[in-house]
């Protein structure tokens, strides 16, 4: 298979962005068509990669491409996917496509909006498939900066400037600190390469690993929303326009966790072992604290934002266990949570677009006007509370099993969040979608479009499929995790 599919996936959105920028501004219809086509194309390609990986042996890195970029410095455009990144590539494709669908209604400079969104998508794809440390950073930053513009320009008027800046600064701080760590790795290895597959074999001295693990891991984990650096995330979610929230919570936060795994744990395994108790503790705080704070929120988006903090805590928790179960669960949780929050934000956006408020107490009775939104939101809610039969359970269960193996008390503590999550989700569902519709909304809540339904259906179907048939993804993630464990010395 010589077709460079991964490069094509990365560059599809980029090329689409360029095409969009070259189109005349007032051809909004054509702009939307191009955006939709590019989104669909990227999604199909990522689906193809996924299916190929699933059916072709489930081992190692596949679709590997390698082009020298700066040989003198050991930088190459080395791409490939393994069992952990393949689902994330698929997730990105899907979120991109659904994000475009949800944003078809944007009327203020749609050309720039889609262009920036695609640049973001391209960066995200890049991080997931990069096997070169330098390229990983390169794409990582590309994924970060369009967020600023997207939030600041098309975001929620009240907080967008503040939130966009906060988000960008947090993420930038995290990534550049990790960058210094990466440079230290480069020079210490003495191998003159940024190729992660080679750096994995570098056998850094233990003291070095212990010194650099925390900056690198936490630097990335900022984007994963790890406590106490999670603060940017709910603000960002709230301020962002719908599609960007979807991207942000659905994919970008995975970027942080994924990079923390790839760079932090896989390249500095001894450091990971040394610090895993601390990371476990931080992640536990995430899980429990995030759930409690989410419960107190009255703004629907804030609630989802904090619930993301809580759920991403589970991802980090799973990785920090360094056990096969925990890491597998974390890998699946990334996908599950991605689809779930994307769905949540899409649904919330649809409600907000019609009701012009997201305050839970001010809403009500939306299920009558928007039954489809209500049903899919409920499905998301069930995933969120880890209801069996949905992807959340399939993901969280192994995480807890992993935690049991290393720190039983943490498992018990973290499990509390499940009930809390159930409580706030159910309350939110009830207050938003059921009960009596306030009079001011009567007759003002229009139906959603067919395309919107397609997006919602797609996301819900994913979560249910994964929940009922874990076999469609878990073995894949497991194969990726095995590789990580090999680096950890078979722990």
């Amino acid at each position: 298979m010589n077709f460079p599919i991964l490069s094509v996936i990365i560059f599809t959105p980029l090329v689409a962005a360029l095409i969009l920028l070259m189109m005349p501004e007032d051809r909004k219809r054509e702009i939307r068509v191009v955006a939709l086509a590019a989104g669909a194309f990227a999604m199909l390609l990522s689906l193809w990669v996924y299916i190929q990986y699933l059916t072709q042996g489930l081992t190692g890195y596949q679709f590997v491409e390698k082009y020298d970029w700066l040989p003198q410095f050991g930088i190459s455009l080395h791409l490939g996917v393994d069992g952990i990144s393949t689902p994330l590539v698929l997730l990105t494709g899907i979120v991109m496509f659904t994000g475009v669908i949800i944003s078809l209604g944007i009327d203020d400079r749609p050309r720039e909006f889609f262009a920036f969104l695609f640049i973001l998508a391209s960066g995200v794809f890049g991080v997931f498939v990069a096997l070169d440390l330098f390229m990983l950073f390169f794409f990582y930053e590309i994924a970060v900066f369009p967020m600023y513009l997207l939030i600041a320009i098309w975001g929620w008027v009240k907080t967008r400037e503040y939130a966009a800046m906060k988000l960008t600064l947090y993420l930038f701080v995290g990534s550049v600190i990790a960058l210094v760590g990466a440079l230290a790795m480069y020079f210490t290895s003495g191998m003159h390469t940024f190729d992660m597959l080679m750096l994995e074999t570098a056998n850094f001295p233990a003291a070095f690993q212990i010194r650099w693990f925390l900056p690198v891991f936490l630097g990335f984990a900022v984007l994963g929303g790890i406590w106490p650096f999670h603060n940017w995330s709910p603000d960002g979610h709230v301020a962002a326009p719908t599609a960007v929230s979807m991207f942000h919570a659905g994919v970008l936060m995975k970027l942080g966790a994924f990079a923390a795994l790839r760079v932090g744990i896989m390249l500095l395994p001894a450091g990971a072992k040394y610090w895993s108790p601390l990371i476990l503790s931080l992640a536990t705080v995430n899980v429990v604290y995030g759930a409690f704070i989410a419960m107190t929120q009255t703004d629907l988006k804030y609630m989802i934002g904090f619930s993301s903090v809580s759920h991403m805590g589970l991802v980090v928790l799973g990785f920090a266990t360094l056990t096969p179960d925990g890491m597998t669960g974390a890998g699946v949780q990334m996908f599950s949570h991605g689809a779930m929050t994307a769905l949540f934000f899409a649904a919330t956006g649809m409600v907000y677009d019609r009701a012009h408020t997201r305050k839970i107490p001010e809403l009500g009775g939306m299920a009558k006007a928007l039954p489809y939104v209500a049903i899919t939101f409920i499905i998301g809610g069930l995933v969120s509370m880890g209801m069996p039969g949905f992807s959340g359970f399939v993901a969280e269960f192994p995480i807890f099993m992993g935690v049991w193996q290393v720190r039983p008390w943490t498992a018990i503590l973290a499990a509390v969040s499940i009930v809390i999550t159930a409580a706030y989700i159910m309350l939110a569902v009830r207050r938003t979608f059921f009960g009596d519709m306030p009079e001011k909304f009567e007759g003002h809540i229009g139906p959603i479009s067919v395309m919107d339904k397609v997006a919602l259906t797609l996301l819900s179907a994913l979560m249910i499929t994964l929940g009922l048939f874990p076999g469609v993804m878990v073995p894949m993630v497991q194969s990726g995790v095995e590789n990580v464990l090999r680096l950890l010395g078979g722990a």
Partner: protein
Amino acid sequence: MDFLSNHLLSVILFFPVFAALVMLFLPKDETKLLRWTALIASLIPFVLTLVLWSRFDTGGGAAFQFQENYVWYAAINSNFHIGVDGISLTMVLLTTLLTPLAILASFSITDRVKPYMMLFLFLETGMLGVFLAMDLLIFFVFWEIGLVPMYFLINQWGSVNRDYASLKFMIYTMGGSLGLLLAIQLLGVLFGTYDLQTIIAGWNGLTSGTIMGMSVATVKTVAFWAFVVAFAIKVPVWPFHTWLPDAHTEAPTAGSILLAGVLLKLGAYGFLRLVLPLYPAESAHFAGWLAFLAVMAIVFGALGAYGQDDFKRLVAYSSVNHMGFVLLGIAAAAKAIGTADAHIAMNGAILQMFNHGLSAAGMFFLVGVIYERAHTRDLRRFGGLFPLIPVYGGILIFASMASLGLPGLNGFVSEFLVARGAWGQLPGYTAAGMIGLLFTGSYILKGIKNILHGPTNEEWAHGEHKLTDINTREIVVMVPLMVLMLWLGIAPAWLLNVINNAVTAIF
């Protein structure tokens, strides 16, 4: 038909979901079509259960029959493994019987018929799954999944206080199953599999050493209570019962039927299937505690019922009371496991589960019938209705008597068996429980008196509130229940044989 015979259980289990998905594509305004589709869809599993019953080998003992086993979640070694033995078969029969009746009882629902019926079908699958599961994780999956349709049934089609009640139901049950979840995970981590029989064997073989820095005995005790609390909430056992009256009061009639008829049995079934086999020693050790809780449930359930002015709350508390007997039987069996007493008590407990399923379903339905007409359930506002609605009155008295434990009807048989089995083991508690029976009699009679007898409340005799008698559809709902009540009261052997075979083999 080969497929059907080989996959009988899967078909029973998943047919309702399949039907629900088909209903998804039916037009939502064709209420009649939707109702009948749902009814027929729920009758098919019932028919298949009868087939299952006829093919079931009653001499099979402890062995599970009709097993099916598919890889489900390879990563954590959990398989979709289902099968039936005598205990679960009884419960499957109860479930598939009550679901069509509940759906038939819901024909009076006019608001959003489609989702309503679909939720019922989903609920049926959820309940059946618990009874069929032979894999701990699958058990938990169905255990939790059943909550969702019930939550929405209460929340969407319930009465005034439904928001509070449904959330309480959800949170109580989820909170209760938290310990269960954690304990299941612990077992899974320890044994690397979720296969129930492997785990039972392994767990019982584990008697010394430490797990995660604590002695096995401590861990087992903690895990035992985690299981017990989860199931006790579901049963519900005093003092975890407070969600139940709220949920019942607010639930739509058919929801109450299934809630009392089947969902409560899930908890008791958990005791039978998991707690006793997994923790024989702990169960025996704590049998006194369980019996204490059981007696409290019997006594306080009865007293609580007596204190109610709301007919539905009265019936709801009666569930606490009746389920107390189930637990008492379980406690006795736990204490004396392996003895004849234990078998008798256990037979009684399981039969009581079935019987309570019938009588509670019947009672709740009858409450629903009158509520639909009078739009109130306040006992003080009724009175002397017998002359107005004689057929209803007759049926109500019949069902009440079954519930009360009148000899010749089903309740008597099971309560007698429980008391007989428990007497030798826990005489004090049994005696206290018998006193509780006295209260049972009084609250049931209070209910009958307040509704049917005494001076007629003129409000219901004339004018716009004039009550009409029970209609044919409603009678159709009640007839199978009454037939079974009578049949089991007179000749319970057909059912007891199935139960007893399993019980003697397992316990």
